[in-house]
């Protein structure tokens, strides 16, 4: 087992354990801060798939944008919001049982599909050319954005403008009740 494998499984375990803690944690602030750990470990996993630009944008957009937005939204809005999220009286509800059963069954189905599939025999994967580890993917992504994926890129920019206006409109104070 080489160094690469050890690091990969370490980060994979870190993703799964911290995600479980985030979901099961009763204290909301702690669970948001643990969400950082999950996102950084996921960025590390993207590096193992030779997607360094994606890993970087994951760190910048999620850790720098989404999480800070989440924390700011709570600390700026009102303290009661944080206090009001006292966990419900603990107890095993039917709701929980159904949720656990559904997710475990779905996990079982997904694992079964993945085990049954032989990825090395897929036609397109045999014919494809994998990315070499010394390549400059940011350069490739820049070329792709301006050629083959220009339409999704433009749609995305219009969409982001809509989100900007919509979120500002929704979040403004003192609108009509």
């Amino acid at each position, binding site marked *: 087992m080489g160094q690469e494998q050890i690091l990969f499984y370490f980060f994979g375990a870190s993703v799964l354990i911290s995600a479980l803690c985030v979901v099961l944690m009763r204290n909301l602030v702690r669970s948001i801060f643990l969400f950082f750990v999950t996102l950084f470990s996921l960025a590390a996993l993207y590096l193992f798939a030779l997607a360094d630009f994606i890993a970087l944008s994951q760190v910048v957009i999620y850790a720098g944008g989404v999480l800070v937005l989440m924390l700011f939204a709570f600390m700026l809005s009102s303290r009661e919001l944080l206090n009001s999220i006292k966990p419900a009286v603990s107890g095993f509800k039917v709701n929980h049982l159904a949720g656990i059963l559904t997710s475990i069954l779905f996990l079982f189905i997904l694992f079964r599909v993945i085990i049954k599939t032989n990825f090395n025999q897929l036609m397109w994967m045999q014919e*494809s050319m994998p990315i070499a580890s010394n390549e400059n993917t940011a350069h490739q992504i820049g070329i792709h954005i301006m050629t083959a994926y220009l339409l999704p890129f433009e749609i995305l920019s219009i969409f982001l403008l809509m989100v900007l206006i919509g*979120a500002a409109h929704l979040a403004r104070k003192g609108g009509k009740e």
Partner: protein
Amino acid sequence: MIPVAHFMFISASLFCIGLYAVLTRRNTIQILIGIEFMINAAVLNFVAFGKYDKISGGGQMFALFAIVLAAAGVAVALAIILNVYRYFKSIDPTKTDTLKN
């Protein structure tokens, strides 16, 4: 060289953790985090397969687009949650049971 299947095991587990959060949590923020987990699992799959797609680069490009869409979704969702809190004084999704008045 890490096989694709191992990436997919991790992303399937992450997806199911997100599914569990969406189904059982009583707190809108944690439901939102669960949705983020599911999106991130999808991005991990995109990236893992994008490794074998050097010419057209579809995997990495759409991973990037998915990350941006998820971030936009969080911004709008948080604005909605703040409004719901202002109106219902609670962000428990079981207590917000009216659409109009």
